[in-house]
């Protein structure tokens, strides 16, 4: 069968239609790509043409409560070179090298790198304005000037853990630098230009410069002077007692503002890379948890007074122990305090007395106060890395746990939790939320962008109860174990604490955390101050616990209140002339103890006594005055060392 012309024509018409259909399909495809996908594709294309040389905004400063910078970013002109835009590389290197005090070869090598942008090191970073102007005047293509900044710390390691550190590209890594990183960080600007695929500038397209915005400043509640006093006191304590670590906090109890916060060991934030990570990664004041010891008795006392479970005039008999569920829990004082009022229980920090208060409250009530005082949960301070602390679970609390908790053992708390709890006693019963940053300010105008308002978390005890607790604590300082914190006219109220440190379920022998928490003036406290000294190693032999921490808080409060212009008041408890007479302190018996045993024994004892060591040897062979005799607080006890046999303890 021959193919006819007619059939050929029909097939040609079909072919024509098919080709038209194919062309139409391409039109459809073009419509899809150029209309429906246009926005998406054009965006992708644009970002592939854009080259942006970033310009960083200046990081905001961190200011103290008076507006003095604790850290700020010092900036200086810095060259950013865009190699693909530099046509004449040798010529550019020749012109730049003398200004930058660099060799031509080094400049040339750096601007010849296949990078979008390079810094010319070292001469091209952080130059003088004069040099920058010289370079600007050259008008070299592909050479840009920007500001490059470095954190400066005018006070060295002051408040290092509070301020925190910044790392690569000035990003905050710890402390306020981390917490407020987004506030402090400026908005990046940049020089944007359209580039060919090889990075060269597309001629005639020009470039757009977006100026960077500086970050905001943050104004803290840290008082530079008080912070310096605190750090000075810590330094002296370290020199004196060579402890593992020291933590101190000063708070304004009326607002919850942190006035000072310091730790030892510390570091220089400008050089943090050479410091041990434990110094810059942890802020002990909010991170460390330990058994508070006697300072925790303030919580038990507050609860018992609020619940009307005790009258401070009631009397109590301490035989030296308290029997709980068949166990005898001993008082820190061998032989006990005998007959005493509950005020004296507080003054003497008598453990059996507090166990009794705990029993009167019952576990539900005591633990509910503990939680309401903020223990067992984060305080919500605006610093990163806060600890929770640990409380017994209520269903696990038996009589023994209730008893130890009542005098501050078996619970684990952070320093900031203690400060905030005592702050509640100081301000009339309100638990405040602590804060470090009071205002966010515009870096350039100083205008307030944001302000922190004090936050009341809850009312824990009544104002009247708080006043009662404060007056008991004032009496602790005036008459009791906190005597070393007494400062005439400043009405300091407070409590010592000596806690053993538990490790792997056992108390570590000879490892104590000696602390004191105080407030002043007792009638309307302006400040709460806290110090904890972990594992003091007294250089001069034997030191009583009551002698270590209390005077430090006394010094801090004295200097700080003076600095704040608080006038001394004559209304406080006079130290020596109050009725009843200052109770004499019973001298402990050191005879037969080794020097090490004597040290531990004294640390646990918050009595305000000084020790003078005479002679050479390992064992205390004699002491004066003798053990059991009564002396005035502040008296000196002489211990005579010799080569006798330790009688053990």
């Amino acid at each position, binding site marked *: 069968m021959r193919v006819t012309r007619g059939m050929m024509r029909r097939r040609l018409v079909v072919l*024509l239609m098919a*080709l038209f259909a194919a062309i139409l399909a*391409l*039109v459809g495809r*073009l419509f899809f790509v*150029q209309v429906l*996908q246009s926005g998406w594709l054009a965006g992708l*294309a644009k970002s592939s043409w854009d080259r942006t040389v970033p310009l960083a905004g200046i990081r905001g400063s961190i200011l103290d409560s008076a507006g003095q910078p604790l850290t700020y970013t010092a900036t200086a002109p810095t060259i950013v070179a865009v190699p693909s835009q530099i046509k004449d590389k040798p010529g550019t290197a020749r012109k730049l090298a003398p200004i930058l005090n660099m060799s031509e070869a080094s400049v040339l090598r750096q601007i010849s790198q296949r990078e979008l942008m390079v810094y010319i090191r070292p001469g091209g970073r952080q130059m003088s304005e004069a040099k920058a102007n010289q370079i600007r005047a050259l008008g070299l293509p592909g050479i840009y000037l920007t500001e490059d900044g470095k954190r400066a710390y005018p006070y060295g390691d002051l408040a290092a853990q509070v301020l925190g550190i910044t790392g690569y590209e000035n990003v905050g890594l710890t402390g306020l630098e981390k917490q407020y990183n987004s506030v402090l960080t400026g908005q990046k600007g940049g020089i944007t230009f359209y580039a*060919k*695929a090889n990075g060269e500038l597309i001629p005639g397209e020009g470039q757009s410069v977006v100026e960077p915005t500086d970050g905001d400043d943050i104004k803290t509640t840290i008082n530079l002077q008080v912070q310096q006093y605190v750090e000075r006191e810590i330094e002296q304590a370290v020199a004196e007692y060579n402890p593992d670590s020291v933590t101190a906090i000063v708070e304004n109890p009326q607002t919850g503002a942190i006035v000072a916060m310091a730790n030892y060991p510390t570091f220089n934030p400008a050089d943090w890379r050479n410091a041990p990570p434990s110094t810059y990664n942890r802020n002990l004041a909010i991170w460390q948890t330990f058994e508070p010891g006697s300072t925790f008795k303030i919580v038990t006392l507050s609860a018992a007074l609020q619940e009307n479970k005790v009258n401070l005039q009631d009397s109590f008999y301490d035989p030296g122990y308290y029997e709980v569920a068949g166990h005898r829990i001993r008082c820190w004082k061998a032989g006990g305090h005998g007959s005493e009022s509950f005020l004296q229980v507080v003054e003497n920090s008598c453990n059996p007395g507090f166990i009794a208060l705990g029993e009167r409250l019952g576990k539900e009530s005591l633990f509910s106060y503990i939680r309401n005082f903020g223990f067992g949960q984060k305080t919500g301070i605006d610093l990163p890395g806060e600890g929770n602390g640990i409380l017994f679970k209520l269903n696990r609390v038996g009589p023994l746990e209730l008893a130890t908790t009542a005098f501050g053992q078996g619970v684990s708390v952070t320093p900031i939790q203690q400060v905030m709890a005592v702050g509640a006693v100081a301000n009339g019963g309100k638990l405040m939320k602590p804060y470090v940053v009071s205002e966010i300010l515009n870096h350039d105008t100083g205008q307030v962008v944001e302000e922190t308002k004090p936050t009341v978390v809850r009312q824990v005890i009544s104002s009247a109860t708080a006043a009662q607790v404060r007056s008991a604590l004032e009496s602790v300082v005036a008459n009791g174990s906190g005597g070393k914190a007494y400062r005439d006219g400043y009405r300091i109220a407070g409590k010592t604490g000596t806690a053993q440190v538990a490790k792997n379920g056992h108390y570590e022998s000879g490892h104590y955390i000696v602390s004191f928490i105080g407030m002043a003036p007792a009638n309307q406290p302006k400040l709460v101050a806290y110090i904890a000294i972990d594992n003091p190693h007294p250089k001069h032999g034997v030191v009583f616990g009551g002698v270590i921490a209390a005077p430090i808080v006394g010094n801090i409060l004295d200097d700080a209140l003076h600095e704040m212009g608080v006038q001394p008041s004559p209304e406080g408890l006079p130290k020596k002339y109050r009725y009843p007479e200052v109770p004499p302190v019973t001298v402990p018996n050191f005879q037969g103890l080794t020097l090490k045993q004597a040290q531990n024994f004294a640390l646990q004892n918050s009595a305000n006594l000084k020790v003078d060591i005479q002679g050479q040897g390992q064992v205390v062979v004699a002491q004066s005055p003798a053990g059991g005799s009564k002396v005035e607080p502040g008296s000196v006890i002489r211990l005579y060392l010799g080569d006798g046999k330790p009688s053990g303890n």
Partner: protein
Amino acid sequence: MFQTRATSTPRQAGDLAIVGVILVLLSFGITMVHSASSVVSATRFGDPFYFSKRQLIWAIIGVLCMFWFSRIDYHVWRKHAPKLAVASFAMLVLVLIVGVNRGGSKAWLGIGSLGIQPSEFAKLGLVVFLAHLLAESADRMHSFWRGFVPPMGLALVAVGLIMLEPDLGQSVVIMGTTVIMLFAAGTRMSHLGALFGVGMLGFGGLVAVAPYRMDRIAAFIDPWKYPLGKGYQIIQSLYALGSGGILGLGLGNSRQKFLYLPEPQTDFIFSIIGEELGLLGGICVLLLFAVLVWRGIRTAIYAPDEFGTLLGVGITGMIAVQVLINIGVVTGSIPATGITLPFISYGGSSLTLLLSGVGILLNISKQAGVVR
């Protein structure tokens, strides 16, 4: 004598629509070659006019060829068809031996500074010879062995030689053109169907032998997976088209030509057209080609004899297949196959050979008459 538009007496000018469309496409092409290539040629040769100058010269030579060929009675080619076929195959073999490697493909015969592509020449030579062969075998087209196999076998040999260069684009164009001519010549649909089946099997075999061929397909299906590899060109092409939108960035305002799109003056010139002139520009170009295809097929229909019809279909089909493949690739509609856009892309051999083909087509149109 003048009652019908098409008369039996030969016309002097041929189909003026074809001439018009070709001249418009050529001028537009030179403009776009200049716009697309200026950055590349300035970067590579320090002369932004490097490609456009050459394209202008080739276009003039090509147009001269076109008018010269339009004056040669197309029946002459039938006489020389066997010689043309032999010459085509000889060149395809020769290029494999002494060819110059450009861009990974041994597709060029260098004569001094001039390079010609034997595959371009062979394409036209094969079209002429196939038209001759198919016209001869009109009475045995229904036969598989005597009607279908000889032309298809010949085409496959040519494709095989070209694949040795290798040049996938030209091979696909030759296969496409051959299928169109066989279809027009009245081959059985079942034979074409069988060819399709064998083709799929062959492709499967090729992929099985060398799995890298699958990459090309994978890059076509999802070019974004290989943004710097096989998908790069397609992505850059889509960037260009997408940036162009409906109206385009304006003539000369392409950004993708700034070395993002490789060889923007050849295979991917349509991307630059789409970027600078938008969807409307692209549709205009497609419309021009549609007119050309219509006039070409019309010429074939009205050709005085079967050889004329088949030659007309072959030349028109060859142009159409190239346009469809080129724009299909550029728009990401089909897997990447390197082929130029007729009359627009830069390239001397391609332009002169295509214009010569159009010259032949014009001569057929001159002799076209009323339905006989």
